[in-house]
Every structure is written in structure tokens, then in C-alpha cells.
């Protein structure tokens, strides 16, 4: 029996604002608990919400980047439930009239190649605070610093067909939102959170199976693992003749298992209704159009352009556009005069490695372009260039100057080359004999020995003809 997995994702991203969604408190991470609060986000009697214009703008930008229809009027609604970190006893969200609906996202599926995933809706809402269940024995500790931070909730259609595809979707949406400047999407800070709806059905069936919801998984890799575990669990239930219950589940990353959340005493009835504290959110069509016009180049378009303009492969384009800063860096290196394909090779190897180690793009684009030029013209070897790169990363020195200082400029002087060749031939009489007996592949060994003797300074292109002549 073959099974098809059907997955839809709800992604909450924190919008990159200075202040909270409905009050002037800072939207920052890592303060002392309950210090970043005011009457509004504490839910004090008499306090009222006032929406943040930048949160509205960023939500709109996200919606436009996802090719959604942004509605001229949307409505904030109250979602009613009790939880200790929900100060008002309701969350201000949007319900039947969300900011935007009907978008799509291009995703490179590991199983199916390029696919388009439908975006059902994007709406604005406020975050809750944090409940800490392990801070004090027998107590739940509540920190409201995060309460009221602005979120966009992005709901996908159930268009994903495997856990790996779900992971690819998350990578694509994160990249898009980071490029659009909407959110930093940092999972460590909880700025991107994922709930996944998953069901299985027999291959070829049209109707969806009963879905379950896997909540609050803390990394893309774990989303994939959690969905695999839940898919396997559902298939096992169905193959055992059972029925899938519509439940919410939590993923235990340590054990790799999903378990149902302990049943709520009361099934959820959120009693949504329009928030009477907030008149409708009305966006002028001209303003929305201006946001669309001002969208930065998004990852797909950028990749297509780099492939067309610079002849990069799809893979290379993918790697150099992983993040906006890296893509900008790559383009700056090319603008500074580097050959585009060579620039991509450098960015994908040394630059990324250095960034991972040092946490920054340390070599200025013009310096890297100059270094690539030195290699191209034969002034330094590629090996030497990597040393120079590492040095420039620290010193920010001129690459040519650094090459001289480190003695890494390649020696092409015929006298010097001949001297090293002679010394090598004298030191390896046996290999010389074998070469002359027809074992010509030993040329490489001999070139290596010359390079070694020259401490890397000999130009390998100059060494070969000299060797051949002396051996010939």
C-alpha cells in the first residue's frame, strides 16, 4: 500500500519593528523579565491598543512578496482564551477579514522539482508572553516582555507532499521574508515558529485524511523529523485498521517522537469577534502599490538574473543568494571587476567558510576582486591566494602588498626556476630514471617537488616546460 502525505504549514514570523504591535514598548529580546511592559501590554484596566504603522507596512510587504491580494480593508478581531501569558484574556488577531489572501510561493521540492505552494492567508496579530514551567517547582512563571510583539501569521494551502518538501518550503519562505526585510526569521530568538498540519491518504485518493497538528517545533530539521514521525504514526494507525484522531501533538526532539498534548478540559471555542477598540485597517490602493514598487529584488528574481547576466549555474546562484548580505557581497565583488564565475567560486568556498568562522564578511569586496585578479594573471597561485585571503581577512591589507610581504608572489624568473629544477633532478635520480623509461606521469611528482623546494613561490606553469626540457 502506498500512502501520500498532505501537509499545510502555519508560520508565525516576528515583524522587524522597533516597538510592539499595539504599544510603544520596545520589541526586543533578552531583557530582564517583566521590565519591557506598559499598561497596554500588561492588559491593565482602561488601557487601549493602537496599531503600529511599521508592523502594518511589514505585513503588507510580506503579503506582496508572497503575491497575495492585500485587502483595502481588514479587521482586527479578538481571539478569546485564558492562558497566564495572555494578558487580556484574548489575543488581538485577524479572523474573517485578514490583511491578505491568495498568494503563492515557488519552492524547489527535493522530490518533485520546482513547485508552487498556495498561500491561503496572511494576517497580523500580537504575540503572547512567555510561560516558564521549569523556573520554580510547582509554579508557572510569566514574563510579559514578549507580550504584544507584532507577528504575521502565514498559512499555506495543504500543497506539500512530504516532510522534506515542508522543510524546503520553510527554507524558501524564510529566505523570501529575510530578503523582503520583513523579519530576521531567527528561530533561536523564536522569531519564526511553525505549526504543521499533516494527514495521510492512500495514493490516488482525492479526499484528505483526518489531519493532526504538530505544534511549535524549534528548527527546520526538527519540523522534517516531527512530520516524518507523525506521518509514520498515522500510517501505522490506519494500516492497523484504526482511525486518526484530530489532535494537537508535540514533538520531542530528544526521543524523535510525537505525543498528543494533554487534552484540554474545554475544547477550544475562541469566540472571535471584531475588536471594538480598533476601527477597520484601511489601506489606500496607492500606498499598497508603492509598497509593491519598493519591494527589493526577491530571491527567485535575483537567481534568475545572476544566471542570465553572469552565467552562473542554478546551484551557484542558489548558494550565493542564500542571504541578502551574501548576495550583495557577491554582486559587489563582480562590480569591483572580478570574473563572475570565479567570484562565485570564491564566495561559495573561502568567503562562506570565513563568514561561518568569524560571523562576518571580513574581506572587502574590492580586496577580493583584486585577489581574484592576481590569481588570474598568474601573480599568485590559488594556494597562495587562500593564504592571502586569510591574512587580508584579519589585516584588511592590499592583496598584492600582502602577497609580497608574505613572499607569495610566483617566481617566473628562468634562472631561479632552472636552479630549483636542477636541485630536484639531482635529489631524485630514481624518479628521473623511471620518467625517462616512460613513466611520464611522474612529471606531476617532480613539479610538486619543485614547488616544495621553492616554498610555493615557483610558478607551476613556468616549471613544467623547464622540467620537460631538462628531462627530455
Amino acid at each position, binding site marked *: 500500500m502506498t500512502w501520500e502525505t498532505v501537509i499545510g504549514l502555519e508560520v508565525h514570523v516576528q515583524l522587524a519593528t522597533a516597538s510592539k504591535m499595539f504599544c510603544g514598548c520596545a520589541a526586543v529580546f533578552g531583557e530582564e523579565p517583566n521590565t519591557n511592559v506598559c499598561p497596554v501590554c500588561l492588559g491593565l*484596566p*482602561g488601557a*487601549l491598543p*493602537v496599531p503600529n504603522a511599521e508592523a502594518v507596512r511589514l505585513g503588507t510587504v510580506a503579503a506582496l512578496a508572497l503575491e497575495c491580494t492585500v485587502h483595502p480593508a481588514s479587521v482586527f478581531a479578538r481571539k*478569546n482564551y485564558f492562558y497566564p501569558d495572555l494578558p*487580556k484574556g484574548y489575543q488581538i488577531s485577524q479572523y474573517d477579514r485578514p490583511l491578505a489572501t491568495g498568494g503563492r510561493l515557488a519552492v524547489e521540492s527535493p522530490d518533485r522539482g520546482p513547485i508552487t505552494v498556495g498561500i491561503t492567508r496572511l494576517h497580523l496579530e500580537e504575540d503572547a508572553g512567555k510561560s516558564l514551567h521549569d523556573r520554580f517547582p*510547582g509554579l508557572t512563571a510569566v514574563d510579559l516582555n514578549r507580550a504584544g510583539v507584532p507577528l504575521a501569521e502565514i498559512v499555506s494551502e495543504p500543497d506539500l507532499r512530504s516532510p522534506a518538501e515542508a522543510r524546503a518550503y520553510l527554507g524558501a519562505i524564510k529566505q523570501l521574508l529575510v530578503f523582503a526585510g520583513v523579519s530576521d526569521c531567527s528561530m533561536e530568538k523564536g522569531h519564526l515558529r511553525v505549526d504543521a498540519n499533516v494527514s495521510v491518504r492512500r495514493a490516488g485518493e482525492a479526499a484528505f485524511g483526518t489531519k493532526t497538528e504538530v505544534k511549535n517545533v524549534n528548527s527546520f530539521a526538527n519540523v522534517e523529523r516531527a512530520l516524518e514521525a507523525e506521518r509514520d504514526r498515522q500510517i501505522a494507525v490506519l494500516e492497523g485498521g484504526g482511525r486518526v484522531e484530530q489532535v494537537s501533538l508535540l514533538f520531542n526532539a530528544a526521543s524523535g517522537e510525537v505525543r498528543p498534548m494533554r487534552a484540554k478540559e474545554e475544547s477550544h471555542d475562541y*469566540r472571535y469577534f471584531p475588536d471594538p477598540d*480598533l476601527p477597520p485597517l484601511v489601506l489606500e490602493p496607492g500606498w499598497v502599490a508603492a509598497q509593491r514598487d519598493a519591494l527589493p529584488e526577491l530571491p527567485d528574481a535575483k537567481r534568475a538574473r545572476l544566471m542570465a547576466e553572469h552565467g552562473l549555474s542554478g546551484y551557484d546562484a542558489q548558494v550565493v543568494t542564500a542571504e541578502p548580505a551574501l548576495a550583495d557581497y557577491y554582486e559587489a565583488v563582480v562590480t569591483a571587476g572580478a570574473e563572475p564565475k570565479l567570484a562565485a567560486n570564491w564566495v561559495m568556498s573561502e568567503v562562506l567558510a570565513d563568514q561561518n568562522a568569524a560571523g562576518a564578511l571580513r574581506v572587502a569586496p574590492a580586496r577580493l576582486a583584486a585577489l581574484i585578479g592576481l590569481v588570474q594573471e598568474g601573480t599568485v597561485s590559488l594556494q597562495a591566494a587562500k593564504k592571502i585571503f586569510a591574512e587580508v581577512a584579519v589585516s584588511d591589507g592590499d592583496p598584492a602588498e600582502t602577497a609580497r610581504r608574505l613572499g607569495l608572489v610566483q617566481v617566473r624568473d628562468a634562472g631561479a626556476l632552472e636552479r630549483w629544477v636542477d636541485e630536484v633532478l639531482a635529489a631524485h635520480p630514481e624518479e628521473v630514471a623511471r620518467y625517462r623509461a616512460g613513466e611520464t606521469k611522474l612529471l606531476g611528482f617532480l613539479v610538486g617537488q619543485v614547488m616544495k623546494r621553492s616554498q610555493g613561490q615557483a610558478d607551476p606553469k613556468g616549471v613544467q616546460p623547464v622540467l620537460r626540457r631538462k628531462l627530455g
Partner: protein
Amino acid sequence: MTAAPDAVAREVAARLEAAAPLNAVLHWSAGGIEAEARRVAAMPSAGPLHAVPLAVKDNIATLDAPTTCASRILEGYRSPFEATALRRLRAAGAMLVAKTNLDEFAMGSSTEHSAFGRVHHPLDPARVPGGSSGGSAALVAAGVVPAALGSETGGSVRQPAAFCGVVGVKPSYGRVSRYGLVAFGSSLDCISVFGRTVGDAARVLATMSGHDPLDATTLAEPPLAVPETPTSLAGMTVGLPTEYFPADLDPGVRAGVDRVAAALRELGATVTEVSLPHSRYAVPTYYIVAPAEASANLARYDGVRYGPPRPEHEADLRALYRATRGRGFGPEVRRRILVGTYVLSAGYYEAYYGTAQRMRARIAGDFRAAFERVDLLLTPTAPTTAFRAGEKTEDPVAMYLADVFVCPASLAGLPALSLPAGRSEGLPVGAQLIAPAGQDTRMLAVAAALEERVVAAGEVR
């Protein structure tokens, strides 16, 4: 009222002392009043309300006195911020002298639903002062203060103003900030004002009105102006909505309103009949919309962030919630939260809340249509004069019907006021004026013109 703040402080303290039997006040202290007097005396220049003593309903956030909403659930609660309206009034020189008693969370029409005891009518302690702003109404009627703040959700200032024989003004929705007014029904709530005279009320209203960046439901309009009193109302048309004069209307009330209609004619206005056919649905509409909003607005009283101290370890969180809210809220508040929860719950939302929202639009539409023909509406404020304590506490719906004539303007967001219109069997009668949205000042001007002719009218029947 003399303008020396310390003298005012002494006089008001003495009068508050004397008025204690009314149970109109929840918090006051001579020291607090003296501090206000010193603050006002130290102001570099005398503001427009210099040394005016003001009583404030205890559902409006104040910094120094508690803000309890007459509820056990907020017993001892001190707000760490001040309501915008009150901040403006104090900056204009007004002195906060007392926090007044109310129906718990402003839910009621008699001020019998206070956790801290009922308020007595100043003219007859066996009767109610109306509600929910009964404490403020009684203090103004007893001459303790010239003006007081109340709040309206569905008539909670106009109705007690009528019962107590004072002026009660509800502004257009959105003209006075709700920031710091403890929410009951957010789409209806308005800080409103009682005055001994139209002028006293109008000055307070003008000072506290205007856009507030902290309240997204305030209109981007300048503060209201204090009206000039016109000498003639020639050219003005006033409508009497037939639905507000049912056959069983209290004859004394009818006589009082007739007296006002006559005064309008004397001043040159044309008085004509109009119809507001959907107003008959206002009370049921109100008792869906207001409890629905209240059920969410009162969810924040969960015992987590504020409220009376409690042991850290209760049985469990749900037990904490249910005990806090079950014990902390009085019976009427619990009923309304439950009704509001019910009308919003799955399967019932459309039948109740959805229907009520559409009816609300029709009620407002009736007013819009009427105001194409007339400038102002005149109705009774309440169907009866002040009733006896206990008379309506057994039947919640009977209590709700006390607001039958004041609810519609609340649902439509319109400015409205109650003007004393003489007495019937010794008890005050109120006449209500309702104006188009934003015409607050014009409505107050008409009331000022009428005031001299009708307030001193004495027995009308």
C-alpha cells in the same frame, strides 16, 4: 464656588462628610483633597477649571486613589496610570475630590449592584439614584460638587441624571478618550459628565474632549467648544419620536417632556413628530452587544497580574481562575459575562451577535434618516421617575427596561443629554435631547437655552 483651592478643599471635605449616608463615595480623604488643592494652587496660571472640585466614577483610572469599579475583584487596585480625560481636567485646574460608587463594572441601572453597598437617592433614601453612575449623580444632586464624571455604556449617566434632577451629558462616541476608562462595552463606552447646570457640564466636557493618540477610537477632531446660550431657537426643528411616547408612559414623565416641548416652541423652534421604528429593538440589541464585548473585556481579571494577594500555590491554575472570577464578580457581572460568552459561542454567534450588529445598523440608520428632517430629538430620559430600591433586582430584564429610551443613542454613538424637566410627586423628571453625531455643542446650546425655562419649573403634574 470660590476660587481659593484650600477653601474649596475644606468646603468640599465638609460636604462629603455630610453626604456620607448616601454611600455615593467609595474613596476620598481630606488629605487627598488638600494635596489636590496644593497642586492646583501651585499651578503657574489658573486653568479654565481652576479649583473646580470634581467627583469621578470609580471605573476611571486615577493615580492616587484606588480604582475598583465597585468590584471585589479590584479591591485595593491602584492604577499605575491616569485616564486621559482626567489628566486633561486636572491640568486645567480641576481637583479630584472623590471616587464615586457605581454598579459593579458599570453594569446596572440603579447602583444597587455595587460590591460596596447601594447608593441612596438624595431626596428619598428608599429610592435608587439610577445607575450605573449613581454615586456621581447623587453627589452633584446633593450639592457636594458642581460636576462629576460618570460613564455611559447604555445610558448610565443620562438615566441617573434624570432620576436625581441634574444635567447628564453623553458626548458623541469618539469625542472623549476612553483611555483609562475601565472597559465594559468598548463600542458603546463614553466618559460622560454630570453638572448642576448645563454650563458646568459643558465646560468639563469641552476640557476633556478631543483626539487622544492612546485611543484609536477617538476622532481626529479638535476639542468640543463651550456653547453660547442662544436667545432664540427660531429656524430649528425638533422631532418627537412617537415610539418614545408609549401609551403607558408615566404621566409625570410625559408632563415634564411636554413642558420642554412647550419651552422649545416658546423659543421659536418647530416641534414635529418623527418615527424611529427600530428603537423598540434597542434594549435587546444592547443586551447582546454590550455583554458580548464585556465577556472579552472582563477576561483580564484572572488574578495573574493584579488583584488581591493570594497564596502562590493554589490547587491549580483553572481553580485559581474560577475562584478568582467566581468570587470576585458579583451576580449581575457574572450574568452578563455568561450571556456575552453564550452569544459569541460556536453555533450561536450569527443568531445573536450577528443579528444584533445588523439591528444596531438599522437603529443608527433610523436616526440618520430622522436627522435629515429635524435638528434635534426630544424624548423622555427614563420611563419613570426614580424607583424604589429592590423593586427591579429580582428580574434582570425589568431593570434593563429602565434604559429603554437611553440605549438607542448609545448604540448609534450619538450625543445625548438629560435635562431636569421639573418634578413629579416630588421626584425629578428628565427630558432627553439627542443630536446628530458631532453636534454636541449645538445640543448643549439648546439645553442651555431651555435650562432657565424648565429646570426651575417645579412640579409639572
